[in-house]
């Protein structure tokens, strides 16, 4: 199981990073979303994996999973929504301002720097 989680985190990171490096805003947003999954699951897995041991206190149960990473990740998920919303709106505004959705934010017709053409 641990291998599955570790490889998923690695894969999510790879895909997220690759999309993050694209030249248009939308893939960057998607990449960031994938990267957030990776980071959240990573943080969550810091508390080690357990099955059927939710951190809800019950009579007679003594073994629980680590609640702390879960609390941290919970707010992280919500915050990453806020971040995603902000950059989505930023990219829309930039697109409307300059007429293209390239991440470098140069208006149409302005030459991008040599050797850096996406």
């Amino acid at each position: 199981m641990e291998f599955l989680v570790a490889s998923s985190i690695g894969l999510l990171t790879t895909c997220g990073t690759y999309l993050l490096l694209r030249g248009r805003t939308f893939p960057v947003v998607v990449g960031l979303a994938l990267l957030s999954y990776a980071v959240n699951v990573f943080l969550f897995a810091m508390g080690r994996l357990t099955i059927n041991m939710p951190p809800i206190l019950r009579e007679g149960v003594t073994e629980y999973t680590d609640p702390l990473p879960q609390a941290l990740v919970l707010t992280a998920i919500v915050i990453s929504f806020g971040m995603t919303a902000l950059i989505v709106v930023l990219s829309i505004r930039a697109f409307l301002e300059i007429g293209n959705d390239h991440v470098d934010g140069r208006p149409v017709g302005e030459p991008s720097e040599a050797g850096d053409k996406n």
Partner: protein
Amino acid sequence: MSLTLIVLLPFIGAVLPAIMIRAGRNACAIATGSVTLLALILLMAKAPAVIGGEVFQVSYDWLPELGLNVTFFLDGLGLLFATLILGIGLLIIIYARFYLSKDDPMGRFYVFLLLFQGAMVGIVLSDNILLLLVFWELTSLSSFLLIGYWKHLPEGRQGARMALAVTGGGGLAMIAGMLILGNIVGSYDLSVILQNADMIQASPMYVPALVLILLGCFTKSAQFPFHFWLPHAMAAPTPVSAYLHSATMVKAGIFLMARMWPVLSGTPEWFYIVATTGLVTMVLGAWIAIFKHDLKGLLAYSTVSHLGLVTMLLGFGTPIAAVAGVFHIINHATFKAALFMTAGIVDHETGTRDIRRFGGLINLMPIAGTIGIISAASMAGIIPFNGFLSKEMMLEEAWHTVWMDQSWFMPVLATIGAIFSVAYSFRFIFHVWLGKPRDENLPHHPHDPPFGMWAPPAFLTILVILIGLFPAAIAGPIVAATSAAVIGGALPEYHLALWHGLTPALGMSIIAIVVGAVLLMRHGSLLSATANLSRPDAKAMFDCGMAKLVTVTRFATEKLHNGSLQRYLAITIFAAIAIGLTGFYAEPDHTAGTRELLAVSPAAAIGWVLLVVTCLAAVVMHHNRLLSLLLVGVIGLIVSLGFIYLSAPDLALTQISVEVVTVILMLLALNILPKETPKESLAGRKMRDGVISIAAGLGIGSAIWAIMTRELPNSISAFHLANSKTEGGGTNVVNVILVDFRGFDTFGEIIVLGIAALSIFALIETVSGSEAAKRLASWVVKNRRSADRHPMMMVIATRVMLPLSLMVGVYIFLRGHNEPGGGFIAGLVVSVALVMQYMASGFGWTQNRMKVRYHGMIGLGVIAAAITGASAWVAGLPFLTSGFVHVHLPIVGEFELASAMGFDLGVFLTVVGAVMLALAKLSQVERMAEHADINRHPMDYDPSVQTTTPEKEA
């Protein structure tokens, strides 16, 4: 306390001139002067005790963990310098009142001057070397403002920049040196450092510390080869030059050498570096001064030379030389400030500073002339003025000093320095004041200035004469007190007197005066003889060096920071990988973890395969944006299933509800943004990004693999599990952590969320009038519209679901403390329920029925959380301490009502407000683009209304 006040007064008083200038120039000057006078009076009140050997000390903790405390102490050395700074400062304030013309912004001048004064006083009274460094940098900054005061003059700006670059650069070196010093001793307090000379000099880090500190001192005190900034700083108004270059800024380096003298001096390194630098500076500065035609230029190089003299004396490392150095500091401050002010008078009255155009000015300006001649004679070292005394002592010390086994070297060079010094001083006397007028057409017709302008230099000149005639009576006590502080031990035997008998020094003095006079008589031929000598132009070299530096930094900046987000991200990720790899290889032991692993269930394996396929598909097909968005949704779904499977029900609930709103949000975005990503990446770029991404993924994946295969070390988690019920009153430990144990974090996070939503609001609200508004106004809807925009089925379904889902929200909220749920999740669920209405019936229609303003909700949420937290104060407990009671309700049963629930309500409100505000603002853009009217009816076809199509009606 009053010690702190002495330092703070100029800083606090610095606001006065800015205000008082409205009441006129006199009021402004008086206000400024009163500040300095008050500080001076406070200082003088302590003077008798300090001269009697007492040391005053005050201390306040600032950052004790760093060894940085606000500690001041006042001993003889501090007293001398503080007196010079405040005393001459007061004279300068009076002088500047009359010097500055009506066009000069006087208020600003006095503000800068007081800031500078405060910084200088701070340096000389600091007991903590870190605090001293702070003041040190402050003098660099405030002197920059003063030197560049006439900002319309290019020379002023360049001179200010050069001074800042040189002294600021030296200051950086000094920070390093001081930190090393503090590390050796284990304390940053001067009073401790000064007690540990042996420890410092025995340390292997002594030489680096010494060199770095001296770099700071030499740059500040304009020692060769850093002397070049000082003459260029002459572009400043003369009061600034008189203040900075006689008594204060350039003396800061000297002060520090004197302050550190007990611990740093006495070694061969100290002697050869400091004494040699001082000697070279003294001779070179004096030589250049002879040929300067600019009155202030001459004085500037003479200042360089005299600073070299004092540096050399301190460099000798003997107590008696230190006494001579201290005495010369006093003497130089008096005559040099007077000379600068006289030069300012000449400039002010004649309109030029070119010595070649002067001559016989004493006939026109008898008072200024007398002042100038006496001060210059003191500078030349003529009996009976005070300059003679300290120069005599210097020559005496040079006579006894052996340099590299050569006993002739020091005396000869010191005499040469003295000869040059006599030559330029005589030039100041004979070419300016005496002789015949050489230029009848001076820009103005000169006459003596107003009283306020000549009184300050006259006062100093009286001191020059009095100290010369009665040195022991007038300067004796302060010299003794200061020297005792510098030496840090018993005073050597010395006599401050005009006549010491027929000593070698007297002979050297006579040689200097005679040869110097001869040199001046031959000045014309000396000028032509040296005219063709190539002399390095320090400014050209400095400018060239700066230009090269700028080229290099610009190149680096443009490579790293070229405005391309792709490059920034690539560099950032690459750096992160490199740092990770370094850490990986720094640890030689890479054994596999031994923790027992969980078995793979078939469901988990299926989920994993699904995740891998969707991830890869999302990358491969990312050009089709709609598809990639759907794939992201699927990935989010798998992640939340994973959370459920791995004992994290709260996370699963949060993830899935966030997923819904995120997908809606991005769908809205895609309505505006292009639907396709163009295929424009070159193969090389794809390869590069692929390599970086795979490296990043491998790194992160193996890191978490390594973590998960090892046992969980003892963490603070056990505490939360043990105390959740008893202290927080809830059984859902995750929720209790969020609203109680780590409530302050959550508080910060909802604020961040609120700020993000408000930023979104701002980004959309400011569209009107911008380029974006034009684009939206001429927007052409390209994609095909659905025939029924608000289908009846959907409208009815969402209406039916609304109360149900709101109920679910309330339920999740209420049980959150004990079962999976809570404010975050409830907020998201309610948001989804509301968004469904917007989707079904359109934004406008729904918005008209929503009476709640989302901004208000965000604010209310943050306030609710804050009030809940603060209410703990009423009970005398720390912020966010929660209490709880048991409540019994019918149907629901017994549950605990914790005060944390109020906090969770704040979370809930903020989340709903933020999510709804973000979506509402996005849909506002859509409406602007679509030019669509607001639909009057909730659905396309409403069977209860007796019309055919609502579109027609609208």
